[in-house]
């Protein structure tokens, strides 16, 4: 699904995805609505469940809009958090799997 032709916009996540980052991240994603998005999580050093929650909500929205939202490169810390929270690649696909 998704408009394969459109080059994805890159959303670069900051290194600290804690409670303080969640609103900004939400706002950025709302801005990007309607575009294919590749989330760059390479620098993420610390992440909390709420940011993951925003990503999941975005994924839901993007799916409904027929757009693609994938995780590009991700740091190990981020990957570990996803695992800890039980978020598989199925729910939040990475670039390779999407």
């Amino acid at each position: 699904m998704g408009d394969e032709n459109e080059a994805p916009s890159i959303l670069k996540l900051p290194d600290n995805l804690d409670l303080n980052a969640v609103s900004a991240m939400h706002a950025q994603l709302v801005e990007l609505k309607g575009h294919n998005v590749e989330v760059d999580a390479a620098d993420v050093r610390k992440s909390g469940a709420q940011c993951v929650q925003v990503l999941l909500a975005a994924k839901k929205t993007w799916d409904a809009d027929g757009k693609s939202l994938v995780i590009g490169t991700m740091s190990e810390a981020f990957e570990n958090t996803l695992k800890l929270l039980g978020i598989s690649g199925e729910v939040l696909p990475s670039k390779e799997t999407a």
Partner: protein
Amino acid sequence: MDMNEIKEIFFQECEEQLTELETGLLAMNDGDDDPETVNAVFRAVHSIKGGAGAFGLDDLVAFAHVFETTLDCVRSNKLDPDETVMKVMLKSADVLADLTAAARDGGTVDPARSSTLAKDLEALANGQPLPDGDAAPVAEAPVEAAAPAPEEAAPASSDDSGFQPVPFSFDDMDEVAPAEDAPADAADGNVYTIEFKPNAGLYAKGNDTALLFRDLAQLGQMEVRCNSEALPELDGMDPEDSYLTWSVTLTTESDEDAIRQVFEFAEWDCKLEVSAGRADADDAGDEAPMVPVPFDLSMLGAPEEKVETPPTPVAEAPVPPAPVAPTAPAPQAAAPTPAPSPAPEPAKAASPIVKEPAKKPKVAAVAPAQQIRVDLERVDRLINLVGELVINQAMLAQSVGESEETVSGQGNNINLGLDELNQLTREIQDSVMAIRAQPVKPVFQRMSRIVREIADMVGKNVRLVTEGENTEVDKTVIDKLAEPLTHMIRNSVDHGLESAEDRKAAGKDPQGMVKLSAKHRSGRIVIEIEDDGAGINRERVKQKAMDNGLITAESNLSDEEIDNLIFHPGFSTAEKLSDISGRGVGMDVVKKSIQSLGGRISIQSNPGKGSIFSMSLPLTLAVLDGMVVSVADQTLVVPLTAIVETLQPEKSDIHGFGAKQRLIAIRETFCPLVDVGEILNFRDEPADPIEGVALLVESEGGGQRALMVDAIQGQRQVVIKSLESNYSNVPGIAAATILGDGRVALILDVDMIVSASKGQSLAIEELKSA
């Protein structure tokens, strides 16, 4: 509840965990090899670490982490908890306590001290010799087990936990965790299903599901299922709200308590259900979009090992987008993610060592007594109110008594009601006092640290034995006990005990012993500090007292009197002021602080064998049962605990003795008769004993006296009002109270009266002129 309050609770709980830790370590030090003891110690450190992580207390987390890892080696029998290991552990517990205190009060802990200990702990965990050259007391096996550690050590990057990188991470745990031991774990471990529904408050207070799960993962093997059904689309969501819920299946050797402990700082802000067993497959089916993700510990501490793993394990089975569709159980099953049961991964077949799972009994969870935390101020307010209730009840009783004639018809009913009220008031009061009663254990445990530190400082080998640490006493008393106890313990180790050489020469065990005991005795708590040292050097004490001009060479003092000289202000026999006890605080200060608690202190010393310092303290500072008496038109209260019996003296019982003394014959013995009115200067001339009543009292120091009063008014529970804080200290008077008629009555300090009658209360001052 704001963040500070939560933090406050965290620190309170830290106190409890530190107590647990110390108790467990001391038990282990004494040879307790019960695996549950080690587990309890481990849990204590683990809980502190978990909570500290939530508050970003990095120093505390880092140290607790190293400590915990070493403890885990002990727990898994990789490390033998011998003397060297226990010494490091006990010191580590001290540092952990310091770090906790520093995190709470804002101080700092000597970084050199904690880092040295951290290195020692690491070395122990890795089966290496201690950095200072001590041979590492590690069993043979662990060396092998821990061998891969050094290479893997460094890279532990700081992950989402806020952990400082610690050089050896969870390697040891990896051995136990998912790899080759997994089947055994799965067979032996308990399986729990944890339903976790955080609310927004949890995140707002700095907690996080990821952090909680990280800690949970350390308990065993975990599969996590995330339910995002309630999650709205991006536009409709409040990014700071909480929509996701989780279902975790945990295979662990820990019990439910351990699981709940992980969530203990989050419990107000989430719905948590922990149930034994695996969630039904049907349930899982309901949460179709949730894919169970196997979790193993190695991804925490040494993630580098896992880099080959592709970013997501479902590469070959891409799922059509629309993962929210509730009907997708089939692809799930087909997905290469391992099935919920903890399938053994062949990846890490490295270690051939098989731990002894049998050594880790699954302890049946003992249901803990339900507890709530209550602000002490609220309890105090309640106690004050109950105090007023007691006074009011007494007033009412008195009014009814006075007007009984006028209501004679209904008198019986009123009296009956009054009796019931009396009983109820008493019960309420007892219950309220019980709320404040706490075991002396925490204070005693602090002393074990003091002993360790002082012993280290003065180079003595000392063992602290505690007894009766569950003896309960009012919290106000406990709070004020620590200081005098600390000083006395210091004194015992520094001055009381001889050096190892002297002890050997005297044919004693080179290891000195200090015994701290508590017990209830006749409505008071008696705390004794006993050492098996040289006892008080009376010659030296006497000499010192003479040098200081406290006594003259001619003074003829009994042993007891000489011993008591050490309580004289400024008296110190230390030749030079040592760093330990000679801080300008003498035993007189100890005596004063004990006295201000309504307590007394006495010494028994046996040359060559040791000394016993004995403190007797009231169980509560709030109420006492007293006998209300009149003396020279004054109303006084005599604590009931001191009274042995009351007598109406006959003329034939009274005998003169010496110039002014009188004795009363009680059965076969004679007992000195003390005129309370005269000794308190209420009257100049002694009253006629025949017209009064004699109260036979027993003082703390032993010995009986007959206190003569004019009349007994009755027996009553009185609320103690401090005279010191409201007026000033009055010799012979312990405190005051308010009577039923609103008048103030003084509470007699029986021991002081007895001592004064012996001329002892003024002994020190009088000795000078003797």
